[in-house]
């Protein structure tokens, strides 16, 4: 139903938490695009927060075990 989002001009994410395993989601309001960052640095875009969280939570399964997962 929803088309893939367009890449938006985004400010760098505000980084407040400093732990090893921090997921980060940035939203620029002039678009409907959310950009999610896994703690490994890889990012993914979506306009559905549920789908984005699903992607983020599944992503560490593809990490090298030494890459931050417990």
């Amino acid at each position, binding site marked *: *139903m*929803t088309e893939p989002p367009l890449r938006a001009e985004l*400010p760098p*994410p*505000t*980084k*407040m*938490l400093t*732990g*090893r*395993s*921090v*997921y*980060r*989601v*940035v*939203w*620029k*309001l002039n678009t*409907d695009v*959310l950009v999610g960052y896994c*703690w490994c640095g890889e990012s993914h875009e979506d*306009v*559905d*927060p*549920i*789908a*984005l*969280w*699903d992607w983020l*939570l*599944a992503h*560490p*399964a593809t990490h090298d075990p030494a890459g931050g*997962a*417990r």
Partner: protein
Amino acid sequence: MPSWPLNQWYVAAYSQEVGDDLLGRTICNEPLVMYRTSEGEVVALADRCVHRRFPLSMSNRVDDSIVCGYHGFTYDKGGQCIAAPAQKRIPRTARVPSFVVHEQDSFVWVWIGDNERADTALIPRAPWLDDPAYTTVRGMEPLKARYGLLVDNLLDLSHETYLHGGYIGTPEVAETPMTTEVDEEANVVYVSRHMADAECPSLYARSTGIDGRITRWQDIEYHPPCLYLLHSRIAPVGVLPPEDGPDDQAFHVEVVYAITPETEHSTHDFWMVARDFALDDQEISTFLAENNRTVVLQDVTALDVLETVVEGEKDHYQELSINIDTGGLAARRLLQKLIAQGEAAPVGETAGAGDVAEVAVRAPAEPVPTA
């Protein structure tokens, strides 16, 4: 299975509420009686006499013991029955459960779970509530709604513009980019909304004396299940925290909520507002307390209605989530993770990262994607 995580700390009371008198309060479906011993220690026992269930909170305190107001069963501070009417021998099973409590940051925290798993190092901190460099006003409102509705409410402050217009809502709150962060190891949700150039809400204009537009930061830090912190920073436009040294050109307001389930359909809504300016100004204290209570009651009214709506809805009702819900969805997921961990037993065998990734973001009422 309850809808809240077990084996967690919950705020049971403000420290100032617990004194010589017996205080009855239900926390996570556990009726408790609390009091402070002659040595100043807070005690929390199950609020039911083992004999015929009479509430101990409606009984009598004698020294550091409670004498049941029905038949006189007497309990020491550990919950052991030490006297029963006309009995020479006290039945060994005559004891009421005792709960682990810990006082910190002006709260009485209670551990809801297995007592041997209680670790005070796990209690999240709110140090300014008990810091002479801050002045705090506070209250507690009973909420006739499940605690999850208050979590949803507090994790998305864009509702301020609509539900609290004229108080703390200004147009920029709903028009500023947000960043949502989740620390998977520390179990923290953080939602930042940094407004570079914003209208100053009347509440802050009046209490800080700032004349003109402001740089307004709202940083939510939620430590599920119970503690919610809103770090609010107000400064003249363009004034940012220095790289080094204290951030003394800004005003800081720490809004704190303790979200404690009472039952599956009611919640203790503890609220506090701490500030690091005008510490002795009673007029500002009164103003902040009255204003914030008004805002809290606006939420209470809305959430009480929502509870009846949720209770009355059909099974599998599908709600819709949009971008503003990113933080709320993260909070729901962490709660689901903690519920699973709290049910699982012993420490050392809790879920690892692989298990965490399998906890669905979607709450039961969330829609199934159709794309």
